[in-house]
Structure formats: structure tokens, C-alpha cells
């Protein structure tokens, strides 16, 4: 698969299918960001090298409670926009104002949570009413650039499966660039170094095999 660096304003092609951040003048397509261009058979894909997380309905993200209002929790979701968890989206019905929201989800609670809506108001409405969500109580939380998340997961989850299998810890990779690690302390700290290495070398190919080799030898990557 061919990949090359592209810069803002670079011509991509005429009458082609393009995925990612681009702009169009008549039938000519231009990249609008600094990134990599992947040439596939039927379409071209722009892969960003940097950028912030913009919420999308259906995403699973990791956030923490940073404020509590009368009937909402406000979440920090590592994005330019805030996340709101209304009481209706809590695990069970809440009888307001008898119950104290501060006791249900206190400030600083970390949760693996679903983005339910993201509309024109530019606030991500979050929900705990999903089987996959989790309140994270124990573990280590690290942050990586959100654009590198697909690299940590890998093609058909190859990378993340390999990491879980080899390192024997539980890992949750959220779409907003936060990663939760839990397990043996030494393994978790080692995993952190491995993830750092993946982020640094995200633009190179053949990464999964290289990382596998490193882990098998239990080397500290440079």
C-alpha cells in the first residue's frame, strides 16, 4: 500500500473518491491537512498526523467528572467540547432532588462512556446505558494524540489483541486518545513505554511485527 506525506493545499486528484479532511474546487480535490495519503484501489484516504478529538455519536470514550450541575454531570473528554451526562442517562432512574449526584458519581470519577449525541449545540451528550460502558476504579490512565488511536488498535484490532495477549494486562483504548491500563504494576509501566513507542513510530509500516519482537524480548524501546 502506497503512502506519502501530504501538506495543506496539496492536489490529490481529479474525480477521485477521497476520505478524510479535504476540500474541493470544481472536480479537483485538495488536502486540507498535513498528513499521510494512502492510495487504495477505489479511493484515497487522508490520515492525519495531529489533531483534536471531535465527538461522534456511537464513540466509546474515557472521560472524568469535572463538574456537577443540578441534573447533569460535566465530563472532561479530552476534546475542545465538553461532555454532559444527564441524569436520565444514568444506570438507574434517579429521584431528583432527593438524591445527591455528588454521591453517585463524585468529582474525578473516571468512566468509559458512550457518546449518544453530538449536535449543533456542540456538547457531547453521554450515556451510561450501554453494555460496554464501565466506571473505571483502579488502573492507570494515559493520554495519546487521538489521531494515533487507530494505530494502537491496528488493522482488524491486530495490535491491541497482540498487546493484551503478550502483556497479560487489561487495556481499554478509547476513541478520544485516553488509554486505561490495569494489571501487574511492572507490566502496566512496560505497556506504557510500548504505547509511547507506537505513537512515536505511528507513521511507519510493519509496526505490529516490530512491536511484537520487542515485547517478546522484553526490551525497553528507544
Amino acid at each position, binding site marked *: 500500500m502506497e503512502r506519502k506525506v501530504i501538506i495543506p*493545499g496539496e492536489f490529490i486528484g481529479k474525480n477521485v473518491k477521497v476520505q478524510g479532511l479535504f476540500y474541493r474546487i470544481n472536480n479537483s480535490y*485538495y488536502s486540507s491537512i498535513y498528513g499521510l495519503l494512502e492510495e487504495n484501489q477505489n479511493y484515497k484516504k487522508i490520515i492525519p498526523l495531529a489533531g483534536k478529538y471531535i465527538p461522534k455519536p456511537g464513540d466509546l470514550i474515557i472521560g472524568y467528572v469535572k463538574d456537577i450541575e443540578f441534573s447533569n454531570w460535566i465530563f472532561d473528554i479530552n476534546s*475542545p467540547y465538553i461532555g454532559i451526562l444527564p441524569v436520565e442517562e444514568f444506570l438507574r432512574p434517579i429521584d431528583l432532588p432527593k438524591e445527591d449526584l455528588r454521591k453517585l458519581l463524585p468529582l474525578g470519577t473516571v468512566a468509559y462512556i458512550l457518546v449518544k449525541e453530538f449536535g449543533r449545540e456542540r456538547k457531547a451528550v453521554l450515556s451510561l446505558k450501554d453494555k460496554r460502558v464501565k466506571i473505571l476504579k483502579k488502573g492507570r490512565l494515559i493520554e495519546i494524540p487521538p489521531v494515533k488511536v487507530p494505530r494502537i488498535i491496528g488493522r482488524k484490532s491486530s495490535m491491541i489483541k497482540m498487546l493484551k495477549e503478550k502483556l497479560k494486562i487489561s487495556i481499554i483504548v478509547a476513541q478520544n486518545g485516553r488509554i486505561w491500563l490495569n494489571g501487574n504494576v511492572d507490566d502496566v509501566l512496560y505497556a506504557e513505554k510500548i504505547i509511547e513507542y507506537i505513537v512515536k513510530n505511528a*507513521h*511507519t509500516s510493519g509496526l505490529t511485527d516490530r512491536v511484537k519482537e520487542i515485547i517478546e524480548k522484553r526490551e525497553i524501546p528507544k
Partner: protein
Amino acid sequence: MKIGKPERMIINGKRLDGRGLYDLRPIKMRVGVLKNADGSSYLEWGGNKILCAVHGPRELHPKHLAKPDKAMLRCIYSMATFSVKERKKPGPDRRSIELSKVIREALENVIFLHLFPQTVIDVYIKVLQSDGGTRCASIVAASLALADAGIPMKDLVSACAAGKVDGEIVLDLFEIEDNYGEADLPVAIVPKTGEIVLLQMDGNLTKDEFKKALDLAISGAMKVYELQKKTLYERYGERYETER
């Protein structure tokens, strides 16, 4: 201490720093130099040394400044106290407020601000050493840092100044020529479309001289654009090529 006015600034077709009339100063660029910023760049343009950091798009405080349909762009140009020969008093002054404004207006033309409503993109430009033509250098550095931050843009912005020294039209003035020359004409362009996004003039030029200076400045900016492109390609390109 200011150097007094030299008697002549062009001798036998050579300028005081040994350049020809239409030569640029040596330029060095780097991107991704700061860890804590979302995007950053460092630029050396002759004696100018400029560091630029971009944060954002991020949440805007105070909230009432947020625009409902697009992001806000904030540029802060500042000179370090040690950037000039005599100590520069820190803090914004008339000149740096003006430069912040013109740089912001130049960059607003290329950034797709409508993609991030209610947020802010902060561009901090710090001049570590000044040697004339910092506004052009700042725009060049800022557009590199914006690209590095992954902010969607129509194109990079490129800039260069031209001016009149000893009755001759010259490219890319340095400090002494800027101070004692007859005119200075900084120009910033969007290279892809040829749009002019910054045009200022200090001094006097006749109509023909102005046209000549403008063409010269644009040709200078195009050369700078090539260097910008090269910098961005090489950051990932080289390593990418070798490891593939």
C-alpha cells in the same frame, strides 16, 4: 546602541551583508520543536529567530467570546526582552498589538475555522532575536506551526518583504536597510491561489517601483514556500522512506 546610518548601503551591486539585490537571507525551519504545544515551529531567517506554538482548537474562556458558527483565532506576537540591542520592555505595546492583528488577519484567510465552532485556536509567536522583517518571518513560522498542529487549512501562508534602499528595489530587507532605507513592503500570499493576505508599506514608492517591489516580494515568498514544503515533507518523509 544603535548603529548610525551607513553612507551607502549598496556598493557595486552588493548589499551590506554581501547579498545581491534580489537574494534572500539564509533560512532554516523546523517543526514540532515543543512538546507541550499541539503544534510548533522554529524559524531562523537571517538574524531573526522565531519560536511559534499553536494550541487548539480548545475550549474558549471567557465563554461569551465564543462564536456560534466558527472558531476564534487568537494571535499573540511578542518580542523577548533580549531580542533587540537595547532592552525591549516586556508586554504588549502598540507595535506588537498591530502585528498580532495583521498576522491574525493573514492566517484567518486560510484556516477552515467553520469546522470547530465555539472553540479557539491560539497562536503564540515569540521573537527571540530580531533582525528586520519579523512580521513576514512570524507568518511563515505560524503557518508551519498550524500545519504541525493538524489544523485544516486551504494552503500554507508564505511571506517576504521587498523595499527600496539607495534608490534600488531590493528583496528581503534586514535591520539596517529597514531602518535607513526609503521604503519597506511586506507581503504575505497564499501561494496556491496567489491571493495577497497581507500588504503594508512604510515609506514612499512610485507606482512603477511599487509594482516592481510587489512582484519581487511575491517571487521571494514563493521561494520561502518551497522551503516550507520541504520542511514539512522531510519531517516524516525521510524516516518514512527509509523504514518502509
